[in-house]
């Protein structure tokens, strides 16, 4: 396969991995203010994502670096053009990263409340802006003949891109709730299931609306046929329907699998609609950045392909192992794991 196409696909895969993984830790973050009944349950929620969020964010770091190396023009135009959006994302992510490390450093309720909200706002904000920014790649922004961005921040806001942002927020919140249903037990798990049921229909409606609109935008604004974008879009809508069904039937493992698929298929639909362009230019469609126009030379692509071929499977193995290590369900009612307290009188510790 042509290395340029391979790297376009790989970057889609990296974004898919990012949506699948950070999607649920963003989702858990969004639910922090609303889902738990007390501070102990809230700590358990933090603990379900504590060991893994950093590894999840790795996918964004790799996607950024891979775009720089494989498509320098795409990286340069998108990052300088979407300046304010990325500035906001960086600020939100920094505050969110700190919330993980610093919340537990003090027991003051006010301190903990501040960092809980920092995480929640960071999660909602970053999801929303990523949705808007990625959708704007397809909907089109003004580029000049040299591929420089010549628009303003306002050009990122269209009905379609805002819907995309909301869809990403809702799907992530739903995904986070289904994640909690497989990582917790007891009352917290029940509350997560209830939240998931509450979110499921909204995520289905808005998510499917986004997927359908994406196909329409691909046809109208990116010179695509309905096929192939309609294929991942239909699968994505199907995954959301299944997620709704599974969560109603309390099949949490299957529901999580379905929301994970839905998160990946949002990205798949968007990138399928985008190909062979990487950034659509509007109004001057001819100025659009293309896969072949934005790509690095063959030698660079060959070098990073060899590295990726060796390293990506290894990353999948050790991240998979991490999830295996931390597979145990956590309860919101018991003391936090790792912090032994005296056993309640007369109760045998669970094996």
């Amino acid at each position, binding site marked *: 396969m042509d290395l340029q196409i391979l790297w376009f696909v790989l970057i889609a895969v990296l974004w898919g991995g990012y949506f699948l993984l950070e999607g649920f830790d963003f989702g858990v973050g969004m639910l922090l203010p609303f889902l738990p009944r007390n501070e102990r349950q809230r700590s358990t929620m933090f603990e379900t994502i504590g060991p893994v969020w950093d590894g999840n*964010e790795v996918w964004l770091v790799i996607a950024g670096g891979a775009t720089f190396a494989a498509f320098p023009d795409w990286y*340069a135009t998108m990052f*300088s053009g979407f300046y304010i959006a990325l500035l906001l994302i960086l600020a939100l992510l920094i505050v969110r990263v700190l919330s993980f490390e610093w919340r537990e450093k003090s027991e003051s309720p006010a301190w903990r409340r501040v960092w809980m909200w920092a995480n929640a706002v960071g999660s909602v904000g970053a999801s929303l802006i990523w949705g808007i920014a990625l959708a704007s790649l397809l909907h089109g922004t003004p580029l000049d003949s040299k591929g420089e961005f010549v628009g303003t921040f306002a050009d990122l806001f269209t009905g379609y891109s805002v819907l995309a942002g909301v869809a990403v927020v809702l799907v992530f919140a739903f995904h986070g709730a289904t994640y909690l249903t497989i990582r917790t037990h007891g009352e917290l798990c029940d509350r997560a299931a209830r939240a998931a049921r509450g979110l499921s229909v909204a995520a289905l409606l808005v998510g499917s609306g986004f997927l359908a609109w994406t196909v329409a935008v691909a046809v109208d604004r990116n010179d695509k046929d309905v096929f192939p974008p309609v294929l991942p879009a239909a699968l994505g809508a199907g995954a959301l329907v299944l997620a709704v069904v599974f969560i109603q039937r309390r099949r949490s493992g299957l529901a999580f699998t379905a929301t994970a698929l839905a998160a990946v298929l949002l990205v798949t639909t968007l990138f399928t609609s985008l190909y062979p362009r990487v950034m659509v230019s509007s109004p001057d469609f001819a100025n659009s950045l293309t896969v072949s126009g934005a790509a690095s*030379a063959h030698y660079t692509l060959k070098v990073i392909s060899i590295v990726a071929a060796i390293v*990506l499977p290894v990353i999948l193995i050790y991240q998979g192992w*991490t999830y295996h290590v*931390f597979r145990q369900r956590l309860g919101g009612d018991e003391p936090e794991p790792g912090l032994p307290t005296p056993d309640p009188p007369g109760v045998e510790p669970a094996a």
Partner: protein
Amino acid sequence: MGVLADTTVNLARAQFATTSIYHFLFVPLTLGLGPLVAVMQTAWYRTRNEQWLRLTKFFGTLFLINFAIGVATGLVQEFEFGMNWSVYSRFVGNVFGAPLAVEGLAAFALEATFLGLWIFGWDRLSPRLHLATLWVAVVGTWMSGYFILVANSWMQHPVGYKLVNGEAQLTSVWALMSNGFALRAYVHTMLAGLIFGSIVMLGICCWQFLRRQDVDLFLKAAKLALIVAVPVTFLQLVVGNRFGAAVTSAQSMKIAASEAQWDTCQPCGFSLFQIGGFTASDPTPSFSITVPRLLSYMATGSFNGQVQGLNQLQAQEQRQYGRGNYMPDVRTIYWSMRVMAYMGMLMLLVAAVGAWLYWRQKLERSRWFHRTAIVAISFPYIAATAGWILTEMGRQPWIVQGLLKTSDANSPSVSTTWLAISLTVFLALYLLLFVLDVWLMRRFGRRELEAAPEAPAPSAAPEPAA
């Protein structure tokens, strides 16, 4: 128009300088503290001496607070090339992007994932496996440093590329990875990391001695810190000097500026301190202390070597690249070089005195030394910051030495206003981070060391019933 363009570039430079210097306050401590904590945990694993476990947890917490900020500020660095320097990104992406992508794939993924395993894996992994996760994370941080320095060194000394349609394209990945400049910069930076780790650790131990807190325990950590600090601070002087010689051949202008050497000399004395002599109109210092022939030796390896002067290099670069000013800011470069070198020597002195006191079994009682070692915690920070100012400001006016000028490399689509706003956002955010970090560290340092690390108090207080 010209003034506005200057302002825009200067704002972009100020932003990159602040965010990267800030980032590098946390990174080298992570690089150095990582292996030291891993050694402590290994000692616990081998001896089952509970003291090592307590030390692992104590310094491990410091390590993690630092790592978190390093991650958060590192993402800013990765995005900032594209955001503020789009012309640069287009020009170098083929070459410079590759080590950045490889860093993410091969190194950052490793350190981030395995640190998560280490932090939360105490009860879930066997002691042997748990220890291994920390060592893997440490290897990840050290690999990460290598790829980042390969990228940075290409800006200082471009190799393994050709120019095609006004863009640099990679021709040899081996030339890129084995760039002599990068290998020297790597050794220099990793030694700096070990100096950070050991000097900070020594300072914290001395703080505990001053408070007569767990003296036996911290004596163990101080010994480890000294075992690392003494040879490493010494080695760094040698390596730093060799690195300087490599810079001389790749970036003659940087070295001439760092010595405020206006005219070619042979043999050349090394100026230890001088007043004046930093501008073309005032090239002769009104006062200076100079060691004869030392500069010749440091720059060329021979006591009779020739060092080219700023004026001669300026004339030569004008012939080569056209009209323009090819000199960096001489005063800044001169002093950043000296601050770095003098701090390096002071740290060697502190480490040597500390080792002598330890050997005479007086370390835990020498209160004057405790105060000195606490002050010395700031030395590696000052030295590293000065070192990066020397490296990056000494490269000006080039963003890629000899290939692309900084003034031509910023993003045309980003307005001066937004650069000013984003700079303000980062400054405010980083200041807040810094204040909170200092507060946390102090609080953390003051807290009694947990007597039984396996059973700390529950961190979540039960909430009043709703």
